[in-house]
């Protein structure tokens, strides 16, 4: 019984994935059409506001998948994944800042406004090159990847695991948060990077640009899903899960656990970076707040709510929580935290495997299949 090629396997066995990808494919084309082609006063018109919002959710969903890859499958609970997201975002933000050119408030051709403002005289070296799109895009992947590589190399080699690993990832993002808050670092301090004008020559405020960004977010999300699905259904995926469940055992049958962890961690960081890069032009700001440890914790919550180790579940969780947030902050601005907190509680108590887990459970029940009680000890 040889294993099937990836695409056959996907079509045959990945029911949830198929639904997930189809929904994305549909929205990917329908939403832009409804925005651009349907007149604004029509009932079917999708306002740009919604398009951008969806785009934001999708980039969050991508981030959630990235985390699910390392946490759900490899058992590395990273409480610092927002850092990679933010770094990708900053790389994109820097490109966008450079595109402003002399359209800043001070009309300085060389320096971004915040540098003029703090009497910087020349562009720091690490800003060089960011006026080129390709360079910035490489950085979007490279910077988070490198950070993950160095950090992961140190941590995995030293066999830091469990909560210890979680907490130092948190320390990492916290340190970056503080560092980026420092104005001297040259990333705009607390105000971050804002007031972007255009991307690749297209006006960021034009509907077409926004729609394209949304389209790209959906596209990248699908690609990410395929990539991750390919990985986890490969033998490497099984090794990774083996590491999660019995790390030592995996070593004793001859796998270099550190390398596997590092590989998956770096890949995940890169995906997070891309998600960040898609996020920034759509929300129009990147500031150190994105490094906040609480963001990373929330991210873990998205994944848990959707359902760990399911990929699309993570994406679903991201959308559910963020949509609830969008909705609740407008509908119940004064008490919405009760609702959100309550949601988290309910999900944990009544849906231990997340929304997708509940769905699967119901399906299994219908099919009357036997399922193991054994604890899924992920840590």
């Amino acid at each position, binding site marked *: 019984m040889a294993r099937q090629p990836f695409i056959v396997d996907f079509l045959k066995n990945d029911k949830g994935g198929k639904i997930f990808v189809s929904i994305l494919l549909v929205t990917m084309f329908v939403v832009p059409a409804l925005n651009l082609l349907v007149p604004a006063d029509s009932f079917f018109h999708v306002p740009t506001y919604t398009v951008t919002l969806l785009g934001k959710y999708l980039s969050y969903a991508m981030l959630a998948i990235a985390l699910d890859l390392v946490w759900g499958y490899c058992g590395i609970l990273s409480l610092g994944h927002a850092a990679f997201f933010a770094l990708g975002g900053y790389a994109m933000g820097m490109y966008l800042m450079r595109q402003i050119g002399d359209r800043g408030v001070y009309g300085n051709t060389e320096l971004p406004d915040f540098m003029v403002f703090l009497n910087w005289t020349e562009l720091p070296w690490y800003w060089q090159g960011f006026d080129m799109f390709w360079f910035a895009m490489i950085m979007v992947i490279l910077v988070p990847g490198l950070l993950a590589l160095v950090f992961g190399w140190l941590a995995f080699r030293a066999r830091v695991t469990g909560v210890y690993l979680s907490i130092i990832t948190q320390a990492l993002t916290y340190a970056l948060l503080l560092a980026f808050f420092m104005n001297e670092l040259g990333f705009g301090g607390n105000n971050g990077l804002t007031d972007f004008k255009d991307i690749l020559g297209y006006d960021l405020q034009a509907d077409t640009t926004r729609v394209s960004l949304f389209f790209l977010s959906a596209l990248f999300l699908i690609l990410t899903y395929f990539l991750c699905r390919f990985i986890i259904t490969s033998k490497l995926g099984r090794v990774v899960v083996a590491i999660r469940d019995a790390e030592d055992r995996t070593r004793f049958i001859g796998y270099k656990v550190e390398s596997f962890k590092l590989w998956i961690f770096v890949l995940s960081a890169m995906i997070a970076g891309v998600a960040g890069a898609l996020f920034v032009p759509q929300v129009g700001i990147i500031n150190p707040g994105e490094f906040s440890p609480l963001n990373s914790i929330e991210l873990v919550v998205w994944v848990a709510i959707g359902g760990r180790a399911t990929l699309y579940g993570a994406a679903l969780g991201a959308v559910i929580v963020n949509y609830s947030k969008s909705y609740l902050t407008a509908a119940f601005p004064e008490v919405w935290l009760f609702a959100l907190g309550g949601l988290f509680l309910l999900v944990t108590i009544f849906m231990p495997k997340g929304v997708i887990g509940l769905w699967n459970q119901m399906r299994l029940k219908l099919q*009357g*299949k*036997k*399922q*193991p*009680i054994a604890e899924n000890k992920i840590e």
Partner: protein
Amino acid sequence: MLSIKELNQFYGESHTLWDVSVDISQGSCICLMGRNGVGKTTLLQSIMGLLPIKSGSIEFNGTTISGKAAEVRAKLGIGYVPQGRDIFGQLTVEENLRVGLSVTGRHTRAIPEQIFELFPVLKDMLHRRGGDLSGGQQQQLAIGRALTLNPKILLLDEPTEGIQPNIVQQIGDIIIKLNEEQNITILLVEQKLPFARRVGKNFVIMDRGRNVAQGEMSDLSDKLVQQYLTV
């Protein structure tokens, strides 16, 4: 003293114990046998209250205990030595023994000398972490720990697994001693026939979650062995 009636147990959807009924009278020493995976451990855990049961009843000394929590059953006098020993790894040997004492309100008192008489190793290792002991030492600790509760019945799940021969003998002797001198009822899960024959007075054989044969140890025929204990 312990009577199990029509016990059914499920792991999720999978039906593991099927209408198991066993009667254990005061002072008996019953050996529970069966192939791997027939449900011996499951039965013991159900008696101890560590697994929820679907139907059936468990009575202990006349009271129904099937609805009671494990800790209550322990205090009523059911001692349990689990398969795999389950020592409190970070607690010292002494603390492992004190856990049992603490629930009976005697936690300030000294650990009964009797335990050290039975297992002199434990005395030497009193301040070593339980988790650091070798497998055999842990097994001894597990039995000792169960004894701190002053149990009326002792459930032993493969207590000789991984134990050196002379201690296996000792454990056999101890079980007999506990049973005969201190009148503790014994329910022993055992794979090794010689040991089972030596220690047990009665036997129960399980197969695929069912109680398929029982009787006095002398009645354990080769045929039964052939039928239920051979692969």
